[in-house]
């Protein structure tokens, strides 16, 4: 996993509420595709017109926001399906951080698993940053600094954000959760031995091996 320390660049304003994972990546793009290829299909419902051409009005098609590493979004970002493809699609189009008033729980977890940082700032602040970006499109730069836990707006104002410390450390180090958990294998095995005795009903028999 790519470590996340700080990112500076254009921030694309997409301030709709309840942007769902179906809109971020259509389900058919999850079928028979690699995660690396999903960036090309991010937001295609909005990015493309019915004839397949790009809609120049859509914010992520504007040249100043193409490849923007930061997305400014409305509340409840990433609601809906659990598809991790939504995170892979965002990452594939170059997004490293999404700043929004709130995130869906599953999306937020998936983001952390892939080095994409979900930043929660209050709606007024997100709107203020978006207004600054729109006032100077192409020039405005936003910084998301995970080490200092702060977002720097184009006007230089600093906006601290909260993040679970364990998540922060894992992102800073680019740490994989599975490796971390497997270090506790003995504790897991001991818990399971006790649990088999306490809850025999919770443990089905091993399946017959097929021959």
């Amino acid at each position, binding site marked *: 996993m790519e470590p996340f320390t700080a990112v500076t660049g254009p921030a694309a304003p997409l301030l709709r509420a*309840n942007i*769902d994972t179906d809109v971020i990546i259509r389900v058919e793009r999850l*079928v028979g595709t690699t995660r690396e290829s999903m960036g090309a299909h991010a937001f295609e419902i909005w990015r493309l017109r019915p004839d397949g051409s790009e809609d120049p009005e859509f914010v992520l098609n504007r040249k100043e926001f193409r490849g923007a590493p930061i997305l400014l979004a409305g509340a409840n970002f990433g609601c809906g399906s659990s598809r*991790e493809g939504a995170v892979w699609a965002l990452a594939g189009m170059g997004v490293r951080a999404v700043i929004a008033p709130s995130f869906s*729980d599953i999306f937020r977890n998936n983001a952390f698993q892939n080095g994409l940082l979900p930043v929660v700032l209050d709606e007024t602040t997100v709107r203020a940053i978006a207004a600054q970006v729109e006032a100077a499109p192409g020039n405005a730069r936003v910084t998301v600094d995970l080490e200092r836990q702060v977002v720097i707006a184009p006007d230089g104002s600093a906006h601290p954000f909260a993040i*679970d*410390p*364990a998540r922060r450390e894992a992102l800073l180090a680019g740490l994989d959760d599975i490796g971390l958990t497997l270090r506790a294998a003995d504790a*897991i095995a001991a818990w399971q031995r006790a649990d088999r005795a306490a809850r025999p009903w919770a443990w089905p028999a091993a399946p017959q091996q097929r021959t």
Partner: protein
Amino acid sequence: MATLFDKLWQAHRIAAAGRGQDLIHIDRILLHDLSGARALGEVAEKGYRVPHPELAFATPDHAVATAPGRTAETFARGAAGVAMLRDGANRHGIRLFDLGQDGQGIVHVMGPELGIVLPGLTVVCGDSHTCTNGGLGALAFGVGSSELTHALATQTLRLAKPKSMRVRFDGAFPPGTTAKDAVLHAIGALGTGAGAGYAIEWAGSAVRALPVEQRLTLCNLSIEMGARMGFIAPDETVFDWIAGRDFAPKGAAWDAALAAWRALRSDDDARFDADHAIDAGGIAPQVTWGTSPEHVIAVDAPIPAPDAAPDEARRKAWADALAYQGLAPGRPLAGTAVDWVFIGSCTNARLSDLREAAAIVRGRRVAEGVSAWVVPGSVRVKQAAEAEGLDRVFREAGFDWREPGCSLCVAANGEAVPPGARCVSTSNRNFVGRQGKDARTHLASPAMAAAAAVTGRITDIRRPF
């Protein structure tokens, strides 16, 4: 003073995982042909073991055709996912319920039906509607592929404990109002984001009176209110329903289970971080009008005007939704002409759902110009429905009677509602493009969907039609 949620969490907590997270034991892992296949692939790629294959169960449901006579290859692009699921299951010795076999079905239909999911278990699946299984009193929740890989490789997840919310439906639901209507109403009243960060206990006298399949429907839509986990305290209704199922405990293990399950309830003095009460008696049959599950109204209520929205963001969302749906504010949804009807999905494709729909359809015909599908939730549901002749009721009326799978709920299998077509659907999401590019979705109960099929219009089932 513990909540049911506290008890479920504590019972699975192996250790603190540092800085606000707990290491939680996972009792059941459900795998399907999209995220499940991908996670199994990742396990292989990274060289992990699956230490407890007996706790994982696999079935293809998402990207498989539901046409009669289908195989994994009928929808060619989905075949690779099914093949990966088969390979991974075989390699690790995980039980697989394959296409054409007994037990196959939509993962959240077959899991409870086979007794794989039980009260008091932690259950994960790479599918946000895993919360469905909370209807049995399980702590069940959706995860992404990475967390699913973690669960397969370690039988645990590192989780921060969500806050607790209780939503009570007090009183009794009126005739014509189902669990689907109740939960849609709650989402409309509280919002799609209301449950984010919470685990929801659905409670109250109207919920306690629900049969098991309705409880699964109610919990299914917890995620549409933002909550990854939603559950109902299990009771004798649930225990009777589970007894004797394939993977349910038997003999002494059953007695031990019953004793443990009877303690699974919130204490009378339990405190919730959020608590909501809804008058069950005031809930009419619901239909969504827009492109979010919170865009929902009673079938006879006027479609809201964007100018009446509580804030600017929602004014814009409502206006966009009305434009997408081709609707104007002010009139009720009842009477709106429909092109498609879909009865299926992990929300509403169980035997009782099909019975409810068939009761409306019996002796009637699907309206001219309407395409109507019934996609049973599992092989067992399909067989039970056929044994009581429900397939004939639907077929003779002009419905398609299909093979089990997710089908038009998620349109991941080459089946889709055509662009611009209006579909009354018993599924769970009315997002833009969810049922097909530019398709218009109206979520409703099975009886409401059946009534729309035979009248060709959104219809209030409480009135003669």
